[in-house]
């Protein structure tokens, strides 16, 4: 039962990240368009920036966990590569449990007031009054939620596969 739940959570995280990776393309297009919109068309540059900003926020909020799953986080393992696989697995689990878990939980709970109040009024961008600013604040829940889900997935895996 637990393994099916964990498997489902793993697939859910993979699906979210799989969809989120495409956000980069509109971010590139919108930021590319900013210059001609500002200096040639002389309109909609700020709107392109706002839209690009909340897509960027969602993208990087997901990217942390994407890096964890792809093992691309920067690490200096010149010494640690001499440790046994078992020792490295234990170190990784302790790192997730003692470092990431309390931090992500704190961001999730400590950020609740910020996120809920912004979501409640569907906060707009302060300079342009364009909609969607609340999405940027919501992104910190996406960030911490995905990190917590990945910790659960990693800690539930059998030893040696983490």
């Amino acid at each position, binding site marked *: 039962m637990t393994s099916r739940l964990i498997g489902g959570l793993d697939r859910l995280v993979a699906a979210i990240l799989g969809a989120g990776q495409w956000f980069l393309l509109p*971010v*590139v297009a919108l930021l590319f368009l900013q210059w001609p919109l500002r200096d040639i068309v002389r309109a909609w540059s700020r709107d392109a920036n706002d839209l690009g900003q909340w897509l960027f926020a969602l993208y990087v909020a997901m*990217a*942390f966990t994407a*890096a964890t799953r792809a093992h*691309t986080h920067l690490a200096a393992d*010149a010494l640690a*590569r001499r440790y046994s696989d078992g020792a490295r697995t234990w170190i990784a689990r302790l790192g997730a449990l003692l470092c990431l878990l309390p931090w992500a939980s*704190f961001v999730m709970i400590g950020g609740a007031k910020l996120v809920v109040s912004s979501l409640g009024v569907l906060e707009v961008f302060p300079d342009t009054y364009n909609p969607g600013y609340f999405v940027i604040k919501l*992104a910190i829940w996406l960030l911490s939620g995905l990190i917590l889900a990945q910790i659960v997935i990693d800690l539930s895996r059998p030893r040696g596969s983490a």
Partner: protein
Amino acid sequence: MGYAGLVLLIAVGLGIVLTGLPAAIVLIGAASAGAAFGVVSGAVPFALLSALPGRLVNLLENDLLQALPLYVLMGLLLDRLPVAEALYKTILSILPRGPAAQLVSGMSLGALLGPMNGSVGASALGLSRVVAPRLAAHGVPEPTRAALVAVASTLGVVIPPSLVLILLGDAMLGAHTIAVTATGRSDRVINTQDVFHGALAPAGLFLLLCLAVAWLAGRRLPVAAAAADEKPTTGQVLLAIVSVAFLLVLLGGVALGLFYAVEAAAMGAFILFTGGLVTRRLRGPVLREVLAQAMAMTGALFALLIAATTLTLVLRILGTDKLVADWVTALPGGELATAAIVLGVVGLSAFVLDAFEIIFVIVPIVIPPLLIRVADARWVAVLVLLTLQTSFLLPPFGYALMMVRGTLRYSAPLAALVRALLPFLLAQWLVLATVLLFPQLAHLGEKESDRVRTSPTISREELNRRLDDMLTPIPDFAPPSR
């Protein structure tokens, strides 16, 4: 409590080296431990930590940081598209045949690709794929190959508009704002554009020295008889010309202020992406793979930012930044000596931290007080930049060295690599010393009006009071006494 923060910084260094854990996780762990210690000891009110989510939101809405995934995408696209190979062969075709030409072409390719892909890792991957096998075919020894690829992959650090330059520019803006406000100087606060302009001459000088070192190193090698004669096709020459022209447009546009660095990065990524689609090199699974890699690499960089933001908040709450500021403002000697000492600290931290970690963790702590002592922010920015470039190359943990040893499956002794690297490091240090002794090198082409500084005379007590006000993390909060 400020000393507790210094203990945390030492713990970060040890944690990264001894555990092999990702630096982001170690930074977050150290920050969590420091926060817990502060709260449990009663020195830090728990409510203060509630500033963290707000600071993370600031990161997510930072305009400048939008450049980060764009550079990562550019690096990955350059690795997939035949641009690097076309550039390499075209440069080679205009040089006399032999190993020296191969080394010079490799170095030149690093200088051309560096600003476009922005990250040392991406440059190292691309150069390892394109340059290293050809150097091997021409009989260039393994340590020389690895040293050349490592050095060439760091050229993007100092040649604008690179990612490290952008991030350092942002960090310098914050540090200079603190210094200008604390001292009451009438300086215009430095921005990313200033760092770009300041870095141009030293970067050019370093590139020339590197090309000379590569040429001399190649001249000592015998010409390999089996080496294939690699002439570029007409298409490759055209592609190389278009790529160089496009790079010059990007560089020129940013240098002239026609568009921002983020927009230049977006243009580069957009054009490369369109090129990939048109040439059908980016279809289906390849595109999905590129996007997945881009997200994972962006996540690695952003995780560092998030972790460093958390740690610097805790260090500020503990009062470590004020402790360091007191030390720096009390250092004996003039501007040169103070700058040299602080750069020495940055250089020492480079033995365990990489450039990104230094920008996010060390720079916000040591540079504001340095800029209070030393008015020339542009000079300081260039010196920090050159020190950061060195940090990528310092054995044994320099990021470029680690990347190259991994991607080239380097098997020769590390000492041989260090020997091959030494002439380049000496060239790097020569440029650093030259800029240190001749600050005007960072000011070539600068408007005279930007150089005017009027510094009102204020007492050290008043300076410390203003600094205290500036460094207080949250209004109405008095940091714990040390």
